[in-house]
């Protein structure tokens, strides 16, 4: 009973402003208003046919995946080491690895632009990739660390005693127990990169422009319902991905560690 009430309220809270956006996406007017004076598909079809939105959308998906992969490769081992109690200066190292979270994105992006320009990586995908990996690394580190701290070190030791080499025990024992943290971290990393605008504003070139930059630049001088439409398209895209994951893998299996399967 309490649970149902809570879920109703939480669901309403999460969805309420989005329903407004969903409705606005179908407006027939050329300005945002609610309720819309009439309904049409003009903004959705316009956005879907517009390469200045669709190409950035593809870029953003690629960039988000690349940054999430890179963050996982770097952060998972680091989180494992930090989770061990004997680690010296663990608090300091953890704070250091989390520090990109605390520098305002506006300052980080400008500093990164000047820094990378000196290295000849000024604008284009390489700069975006480095910048976004810096930005999303802490998310992956922190979620994996949280799970790793709850994992029983005895498990890995047992594998070790049974003669498994460290690499095998990592792949077959450690990694599966960390899965919920990695999945959550990867989701954060992707979503943060997918929505990141400050670094992308200064790094993207014509070919590598990301979706949030395209949206921001559009909004700066045109206020039409195209942004509502593109938001709706993003939502539909994510629903499709979640459905595909659920159908092919099962979301709960993906998010669970091996311990419970």
């Amino acid at each position, binding site marked *: 009973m309490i649970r149902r009430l809570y879920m109703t309220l939480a669901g309403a809270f999460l969805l309420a402003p989005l329903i407004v956006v969903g409705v606005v996406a179908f407006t027939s*007017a*050329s*300005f*945002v*208003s*609610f309720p819309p004076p009439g309904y049409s598909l003009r903004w959705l079809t316009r956005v879907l046919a517009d390469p*200045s939105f669709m190409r950035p959308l593809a*870029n953003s998906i*690629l960039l988000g*995946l*690349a940054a999430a*992969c*890179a963050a996982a490769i770097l952060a998972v081992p680091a989180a494992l080491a930090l989770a061990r109690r004997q680690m010296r200066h663990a608090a300091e190292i953890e704070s250091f690895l989390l520090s990109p979270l605390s520098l305002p994105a506006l300052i980080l992006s*400008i500093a990164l*632009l*000047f820094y990378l*320009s000196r290295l000849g990586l*000024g*604008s*284009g*995908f*390489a700069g975006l*990739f480095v910048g976004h990996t810096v930005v999303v690394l802490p998310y992956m580190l922190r979620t994996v660390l949280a799970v790793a701290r709850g994992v029983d070190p005895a498990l890995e030791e047992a594998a070790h005693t049974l003669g498994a080499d460290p690499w095998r025990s990592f*792949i*077959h024992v450690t990694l599966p127990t960390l899965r919920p943290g990695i999945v959550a971290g990867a989701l954060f990393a992707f979503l943060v990169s997918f929505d990141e605008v400050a670094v992308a*504003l*200064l790094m993207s*070139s*014509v*070919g*590598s*422009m990301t979706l949030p*930059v*395209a949206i*921001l*630049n*559009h*909004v*700066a*001088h*045109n*206020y*039409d319902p*195209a942004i509502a439409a593109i938001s709706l398209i993003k939502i539909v895209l994510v629903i499709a991905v979640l459905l595909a994951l659920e159908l092919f893998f099962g979301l709960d299996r993906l998010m669970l560690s091996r311990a419970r399967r």
Partner: protein
Amino acid sequence: MRDSIRRLAAASVLLIALPVAGALAQDKIVVTSSGGVWLDSAKNNFATCFKERTGKDPEILVSASNEIMQRLRASPGNPPIHVAVLSEIDAIRAGQEGLLDKLTVEKVPNLKDVPEVFRKQWNDFATIQNFGAMIVMVNGEKVPNPPQDWKTLIDEVIAGKYGKRVSFPSLTMPWGPMFTWFLTTLYDGSEDVVFQKYKAMLPNMAKYWVSPVDALNMFAAKEIDILVYWDGRAYAFAEENKWAKAYIPAPGAFQSAAMLAKPKGAPELAWQYVDCVLSPKAQLGHSHTVKYPIVNSKVEYPADLKAILTPLEKVRQPDFARIIERVPNWLDRWNREIR
């Protein structure tokens, strides 16, 4: 498991390598534009002209003045952008910092038809390509007879005649300092009076708007009845929503403009694009698309366009040198006093 990791690694290398290779392949003129209709105009008017003359397509980067400035500063002499559209203040700063080439009639023949007033304050390091003005939008149903001059409007807002349903631009939005300068011209140049008025209006201000979208949001959602906003968009909004009206209060409005400039170190070919932007045909096409007045004196506007464009006589060009000097102080006063 190991196989799948290897496949994942290979895939990520590909993911990264492909766009990098794409980025290296470009060897083009990069020009900037704002998004939406501005981008449409840059494609249809400016890029078309450039293609006719040179046989090449420019790359159009949609970017805002602030970001363009940072990019020019990060790579002086080797700019990633070859023709830039900047804000007035950024264009002055860029000129002073030595980031721009001077425009001359030899390099840009169409410049001869651009009156000097459109480039004097920029020392020929940039020229206005189009301009607009900040005017007043009202909800005609709630405010059928809005005051016809700025000072009366301000005093009536202070008196609470319109309740808390008014929104003026904040000093902290990019054109806020220019609006503040404009207000000082109404009150004999006195900053103190303007800040007193700002403070006195605060209780009846739904909000001093910072984001243009947010401002139009409030107006569209009928949270406010009076909004100080840009002319082009105000007229476009009023055209579609019959309850909305837009007008220029006496004695006019301040000019807000998009500046065209060629960064130092950009290839010579970039001058062709600059000249295209200023050519009569492209200028008229641009004005048609974005609904703002342009600067080439050879252009004759058709009647329908003339009706909605703010005429040059009604706009005052801000004194940018003074604004740049005063902004830090104004910003500080604004943050401390107007709250």
